[in-house]
């Protein structure tokens, strides 16, 4: 499945202070010349100054965990070189499309961020790690355009690595394993990539959107960056809004914007009425109830409510959807995407899938609901990667946010559960290759410099 082209998401709009930052209303690809003419690659700050500026900006990762970027950079920078930078644009969450949009349409903003990171931490190699073929081609073209221009002086080697689109391929230890020629499957930690990553060297694995924000920080400064968004997670973020809304697509919002405003940009709930809920983070962050429309879209604020914003993919569930059917479908997804390396993940995600299917089919008794909750507790934090935590999040959020609905499903068949939800809960075409995988079959790598 390496190199499949995924759907190109439309743009929906922006709610930021001072307009869009990363998104531009364009269907074409921003060329090197165009990007440069608009002020790109003229970064005022370089080297250690980038790290200082980043620290003031308070940028947090956009790949899922929202970890402060400057702390991770410092951890890589203080280890002996050589060092590597990886642009993680694999985007394993099926409901997310932001990273592939950036690489397809604005590759240079991502590459400039990666160059700034490399200069700050003293890295001599940049890897662009993708699953989407057009995004990979656009990245290769960007690297070639940079090479052809001599005015920027010496720059690090830029390599593009393509992997099959699976859920675990984007996890950072899978990323370094695939770059080193292995299958894109997680490894145990420690060592973490910031300690020992690609080719055994300290490696900064950073989400593509995070690096695009870095490019803006080095160009316009931390103060400008902090001009939008909340104090603890400043700036804007890209949301992929999909499901039962009228205009699904990409939105750029200041952190702290209410979901209600985003939903309005997306044209509201398809079919009218109130949403039944939202699936958050892609599938990783759990399912939240309709009350979520009035919560600020910000990692910390949502976390205190038990919701994970993840990589910013939000699926709107229309009035007619049954959240139990949605949870069962997501449970099935996690069981299928388990890389079959850790016993607790294989058995745990399968058990969760089975129990959710029973609930969906009206075959569950009260003991099964308790059992479901127990399974969630048992798998959390027990895998080599956090995939089982995604399955646990779905179960725990379902029981916490929709206790009445869950109770109604015990021993009773729900007719709405019979409706398929695959149109809003898409699957991935590829599954992790778990045994007998020859690395050359699972990846294709191109060195562009």
């Amino acid at each position, binding site marked *: 499945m390496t190199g499949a082209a995924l759907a190109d998401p439309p743009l929906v709009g922006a709610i930021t202070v001072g307009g869009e930052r990363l998104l531009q209303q364009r269907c074409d690809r921003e060329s090197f010349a165009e990007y440069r003419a608009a002020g790109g690659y003229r970064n005022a700050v370089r080297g250690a100054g980038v790290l200082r500026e980043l620290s003031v900006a308070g940028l947090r990762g956009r790949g899922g965990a929202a970890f*402060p970027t400057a*702390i*991770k950079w410092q951890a890589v920078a203080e280890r002996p070189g050589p060092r590597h930078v990886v642009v993680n644009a694999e985007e394993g969450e099926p409901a997310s499309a932001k990273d592939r949009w950036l690489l397809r349409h604005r590759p240079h903003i991502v590459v400039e961020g990666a160059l700034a990171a490399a200069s700050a931490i003293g890295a001599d190699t940049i890897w662009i790690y993708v699953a989407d073929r057009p995004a990979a081609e656009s990245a290769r073209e960007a690297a070639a355009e940079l090479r052809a221009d001599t005015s920027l002086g010496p720059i690090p080697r830029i390599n593009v690595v393509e992997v099959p689109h699976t859920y675990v391929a984007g996890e950072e230890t899978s990323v370094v394993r695939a770059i080193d020629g292995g299958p894109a499957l997680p490894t145990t930690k420690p060592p973490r990539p*910031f300690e020992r990553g690609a080719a055994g060297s300290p490696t900064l694995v950073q989400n593509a959107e995070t690096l695009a924000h870095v490019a803006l920080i080095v160009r316009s400064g931390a103060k400008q960056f902090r001009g939008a968004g909340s104090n603890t997670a400043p700036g804007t973020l890209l949301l992929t809004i999909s499901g039962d809304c009228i205009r699904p697509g990409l939105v750029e919002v200041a952190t702290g914007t209410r979901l209600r405003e985003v939903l309005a940009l997306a044209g509201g709930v398809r079919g009218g009425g109130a949403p039944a809920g939202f699936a958050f983070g892609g599938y990783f962050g759990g399912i939240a109830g309709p009350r979520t429309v009035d919560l600020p879209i910000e990692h910390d604020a949502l976390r205190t409510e038990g919701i994970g914003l993840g990589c910013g993919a939000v699926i709107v569930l229309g009035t007619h959807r049954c959240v139990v059917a949605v949870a069962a479908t997501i449970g099935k997804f996690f069981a299928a995407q388990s890389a079959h390396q850790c016993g607790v993940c294989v058995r745990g995600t399968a058990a969760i899938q089975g129990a959710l299917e029973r609930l969906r089919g009206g075959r569950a008794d009260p003991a099964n609901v308790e059992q479901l909750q127990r399974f969630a507790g048992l798998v959390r*934090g027990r895998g080599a990667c956090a995939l089982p935590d995604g399955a646990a999040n779905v179960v725990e959020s379902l029981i916490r946010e929709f206790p009445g609905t869950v109770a109604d499903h015990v021993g009773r068949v729900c007719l709405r559960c019979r409706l398929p939800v695959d149109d809003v809960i898409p699957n991935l075409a590829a599954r992790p290759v778990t045994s007998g995988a020859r690395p050359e079959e699972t990846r294709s790598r191109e060195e562009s410099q």
Partner: protein
Amino acid sequence: MKLEKVACLEELSDRKLLRLKGPGYDLCIVLTDNKVHAFANRCPHTGARLHASRVRHNVLTCSHHLAQFDLCSGSVLTFPMEGLDVEKTGPLVVFDAEVDADGWVSVDLGEIELYGRGPVR
């Protein structure tokens, strides 16, 4: 329990951790911004050792999942980047450290029995 004269100020190079381990205790002391701090050699996130961690001003960054703690109060400044129960990470256990007129450092461990046995959290 008070540990008297555990180190001399001259032995402490700026921001370098000194590990002190003995019966019932395992702690680190560090000189930063002209002040000596003492804290349990145990990260409140997973219980991992802290003596390979980094100190800058009064901020300690755990080498395992990069959580950050304030050395004055022990409070969590940044939650760990990953791992189990990230948001349940409690404060770092810090102890009073004094430097006398001759430059000797003493550390007051307080209720050391409690520290020796139970989890730090």
